[in-house]
């Protein structure tokens, strides 16, 4: 039985499906849900670009992250206890820190993020978390078969395999 579920949201289809699964688990286990997202990291060249309004770029990235959190929060039913974390760290570091600091006992996240480049980058994030998290990780795909992969059985007597077909990697 899970008590505290951490779910990473970024607005991607995989993350949307991850949130669906996390809500389902939280409702079933009466667990607390924590939504986490990170402000998109601006490339180093953003600092150097002539005439670039870096403050505006940062504000836009912040606003985007806040909008993602708001949309995710709106999806969580009233009977689920929920809190949120908005990190200005890179998402990999943010997740690693929050897993420990938040005392979570399950991490749920999408396999890949938005867009081709970001998908590759966030795909590496899910891979990293899958292999370094001290607690079970549920990696969710949003493809038509809604495949799931898990680093470990995800609950008492109920595993990801009971819920959806499982693939062996992120």
């Amino acid at each position, binding site marked *: 039985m899970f008590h505290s579920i951490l779910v990473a949201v970024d607005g991607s289809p995989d993350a949307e499906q991850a949130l669906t699964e996390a809500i389902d688990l939280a409702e079933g286990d009466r667990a607390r849900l924590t939504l986490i997202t990170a402000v998109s990291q601006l490339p180093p060249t953003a600092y150097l670009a002539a005439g670039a309004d870096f403050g505006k770029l940062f504000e836009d990235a912040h606003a985007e992250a806040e909008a993602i*959190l708001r949309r995710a929060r709106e999806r969580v039913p009233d009977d689920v206890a929920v809190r949120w*974390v908005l990190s*200005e760290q890179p998402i990999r570091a943010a997740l690693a820190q929050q897993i420990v600091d938040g005392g979570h006992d399950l991490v749920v996240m999408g396999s890949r993020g938005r867009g081709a480049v970001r998908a590759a980058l966030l795909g590496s994030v899910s891979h990293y978390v899958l292999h370094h998290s001290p607690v079970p990780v549920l990696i969710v795909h949003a493809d038509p078969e809604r495949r799931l992969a898990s680093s470990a059985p995800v609950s008492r007597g109920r595993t990801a395999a009971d819920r959806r077909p499982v693939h062996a990697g992120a």
Partner: protein
Amino acid sequence: MQAPDAEPPVAATALADEGAAEASLGETIPRLREILGPGTVCGG
């Protein structure tokens, strides 16, 4: 003349940006808590 092992000077604009970011964070957290409920913003 700067000593060889001295810390490089920090640009004034960088300090200004940092101060603005902290001020922004102080406003962001209460605003988001009002919208989203309990939660926090972790600095970079």
